[in-house]
């Protein structure tokens, strides 16, 4: 599972590489378009992260060459420009996602994981579990330590998302987008309130807390040893 990052800004490239490596991905970094294209065509990558503005060949040209070579590797674009035509152009050429700078690393990580998961066959699980938490997707029931928990439809959707992506830090924007279909940055604390209410039902009565806040990044559902 190797990722290729093509980014000419040394600092940005370094930080991205460090962040993705620490998140458990093997990464390669190219600082210009030519090297990037060469690596993309010769190496076996699970995902390409391309800056649009690059010396040599720009991100679009790399994407074009990669698609012409018959590679279906998913491509995530990073750009400092947010013009509609850029976005359309990128998507027409076969880009899979698009992030505009400034973006939060947690957002990038969540998108990377979504793209990597896209290829995999959808999970056929009818129940999701973590520790003593069980979510029955067919009967729409949640249980903790054998005890039934009443959840609203949105709380159920939120818990399902957290369980499906357990161990991943989910930024608030991703939660808003996946659970409520609100696809814009907003500075409300709607998600905080929703998480607080879910915690009240899932975690409060138990010593072993499952929902954790990662300050400044988002929320994660995982079992932690004290």
């Amino acid at each position, binding site marked *: 599972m190797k990722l290729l990052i093509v980014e000419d800004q040394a600092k940005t490239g370094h930080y991205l590489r460090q962040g993705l490596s620490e998140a458990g991905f093997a990464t390669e970094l190219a600082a210009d378009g030519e090297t990037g294209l060469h690596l993309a065509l010769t190496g076996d990558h699970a995902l390409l992260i391309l800056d649009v503005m690059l010396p040599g060949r720009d991100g679009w040209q790399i994407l074009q060459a990669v698609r012409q070579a018959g590679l279906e590797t998913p491509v995530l674009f990073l750009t400092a420009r*947010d*013009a*509609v035509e850029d976005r359309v152009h990128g998507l027409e050429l076969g880009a899979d996602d698009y992030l*505009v700078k*400034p*973006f*939060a690393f947690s957002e990038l990580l969540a998108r990377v994981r979504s793209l990597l998961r896209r290829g995999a066959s959808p999970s056929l699980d009818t129940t999701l579990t973590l520790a003593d938490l069980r979510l029955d997707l067919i009967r729409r029931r949640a249980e903790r330590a054998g005890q039934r928990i009443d959840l609203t439809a*949105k709380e159920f959707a939120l818990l399902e998302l957290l369980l499906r992506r357990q161990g991943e830090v989910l930024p608030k924007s991703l939660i*808003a987008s996946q659970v*409520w*279909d*609100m*696809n*814009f*940055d*907003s*500075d*409300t*604390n*709607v998600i905080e*309130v*929703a998480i607080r*209410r879910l915690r009240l039902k899932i975690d409060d009565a138990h010593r072993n807390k499952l929902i954790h806040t990662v*300050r*400044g990044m988002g929320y994660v559902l995982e079992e932690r040893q004290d």
Partner: protein
Amino acid sequence: MRRLSLGSRLALLFAACTAAVSLTAGLLFSHASKHHFVELDQQLLGARLSQLRSQLAGVDSADKLAARLPALRGELSHQADLALRIRGAEGELWFQSRPGLPEDAVQPGLATLRADSVDYRSLSVPLDEHAEHAAQLTLFLDITHHQHFLQGMQRLIWLTVGLSALATALLGAWAARRGLRPLRQIGEVAASVSAHSLTTRLPVAQMPEELAQLASTVNAMLQRLDDAFQRLSAFSADIAHELRTPLSNLLTHTQVTLTRPRSLEEYREALHGNLEELQWMAQLVNDMLYLAKADHGLLMPNRQPLELAAEVDALLDYYAALAEESDVQLLREGAATIEGDRHMLRRALSNLLDNALRFTPQGGTIKVSLTAGLSITVANTGPAIEAGALQRLFDRFYRADPARREGSSEHAGLGLAITRSIVQAHGGGIRAECEGGWTRFVINLPG
């Protein structure tokens, strides 16, 4: 090819008009004079002929005429410009007072003839009115002086036409130049406009009626440019100001943290503090870029048919928990459909709801009303906002409560400006009003 100047065009038109008028007048006058001369000649010839006829009464052959010739010659000698020819009933020449006269006219009566470059008017009558075949008297009047007069007059007419056309062309050019001075004035003002002098205005009161509208249009344009420019300047200043606080926090905080060794926990705290500032700044920059895109007309709604009731319900569902926490009731009434961009409209309404939630006191109500016509009203109970502030709510970085401005990490004051941009990108308008304990934001959209 360069088009003729307005002044030259007007001058030429003036000249052409004057020439046409004076030419017509001249031709009419000339024609009338000619006609007048013909009448005069006819009278003269008629009078002389009847005199001659009575003098020659009883003459029915050349011999009888011969007897009367001396008296006739005496009679004719008094008038040098008159000449007489008498022909017998068969057309044979009986008498001719002088040689070189033109042939008789084909038709009897008055005729204008020419011989040896002398013009004559001739009138023919029978000598005896009552006889079947009578001798024919033809009297010739030399009209050369008339013709000279008429020719002179025609020359005069052409001269008048030419001179008056020239004079009006020159006068017209001068008049047009004077008349077009306000236009030049507009040009001068337009040329003097720059980013630093957008306050220049045209004196509409001094403009002629035809140009007053143009002048006030230009003034209105200058006013709009001035407003937009002022807003833009203020916007840049605001951006700098808004970024200054978090930047200075970051600088201070980072430097203070680095001044001496600290525990791991303290470093982590410092980074978290910085992260909050940075996220706030990133949000601010993204919002500003969004607004900049709107300003450049690049906010293009991806239109699709939408049930607004469903969209509003989804938003109320999104905010339900938050509203419940602060004991605020969320309501929706009415329904409407629209061709609009789902994400953009959700964002616009979300900002309004977010704003309403901030200002609705505990136990209050937020009501979203939809009318098919088409309007969306987001109303909330709460303290009245003064009229001056209502106007400014949609301004960037404006906050009704100045105390919230500094150090508020959560709200940059761009939400309502973004809402307005989105509404405008959909061809609609938004206004805020305050009445009877309710604050209302009313969006009107083309249906």
